[in-house]
């Protein structure tokens, strides 16, 4: 979007510098932070509240809390970590207030046992009977760029059970570290690992099914 505030010079600055400028009342630095983190923050909010306008409200509340708390932010954690923690707290409070709060740890428990690959595809010795289908191009760039494959991936992510989706989005789409994900979602490391594994293998499976369907 075009904004009344030019941000050209700020876009390349580190978060810590932008935060320093925001404290001093620099509007364009605030706009730069919002642009840098806004999309990922909205994606994160949607893990807690799926309805689009409600997720935007949570994002808005989060930024307001950031401004209110800015003087207390000491920079011990990164700005992004701090931002995400604020959002997770806000989203949880909201969910509790609206009486639909199911922690991710509880969701993780209900998501049950599942296999990365249908057991029928292996023989009695556990060797491939029906091996994986080759993809024309297995590079991440091609997968993400090709519109159809991208849609398949996005649909597969949306179809994941909530706890799996949350872990996958934070780990693979957003690149957060395991420990941070566990903190934000209230999961144990073991849970996080299992959920990530199931989620990734489901998305891979969706691409394979798409490729098979094309043949």
């Amino acid at each position: 979007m075009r904004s009344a505030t030019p941000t050209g010079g700020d876009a390349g600055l580190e978060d810590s510098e932008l935060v320093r400028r925001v404290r001093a009342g620099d509007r364009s630095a605030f706009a730069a932070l919002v642009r840098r983190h806004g999309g990922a923050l909205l994606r994160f909010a949607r893990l807690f509240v799926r309805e689009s306008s409600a997720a935007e409200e949570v994002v808005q509340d989060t930024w307001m809390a950031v401004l209110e708390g800015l003087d207390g932010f000491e920079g011990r954690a990164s700005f992004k970590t701090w931002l995400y923690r604020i959002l997770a707290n806000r989203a949880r409070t909201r969910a509790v207030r609206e009486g639909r709060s199911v922690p991710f740890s509880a969701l993780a428990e209900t998501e049950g046992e599942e296999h990365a690959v249908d057991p029928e595809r292996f023989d009695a010795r556990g060797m491939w009977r029906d091996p994986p289908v080759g993809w024309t191009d297995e590079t991440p760039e091609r997968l993400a760029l090709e519109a159809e494959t991208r849609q398949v991936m996005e649909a597969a992510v949306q179809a994941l059970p909530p706890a799996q989706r949350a872990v996958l989005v934070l780990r693979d789409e957003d690149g957060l570290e395991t420990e941070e994900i566990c903190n934000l979602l209230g999961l144990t490391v073991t849970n996080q690992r299992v959920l990530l594994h199931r989620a990734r293998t489901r998305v891979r499976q969706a691409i394979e099914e798409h490729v098979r369907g094309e043949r």
Partner: protein
Amino acid sequence: MLTCKEITELVTEYAEGNLSLMDRLRFQMHIGMCRNCRRYVRQVKATAAALGLLPPPETSPDLEQELLRRFESWKKARS
């Protein structure tokens, strides 16, 4: 020797660097010899990396404007 089925269950632990040295070696030994599992591991890794290339959703211009408006109020209240 790990089975192909086991490889498909360990692939994330392998890719995330969580396997012990011994398990890592066993894993690598298997994929060194098994073309199908090599392909499977490559596909899971490519899937994870491709997810990292998906653009995040866009925030609406209205939200951005609203935030900037609120920033001004915040700034005024501070000074």
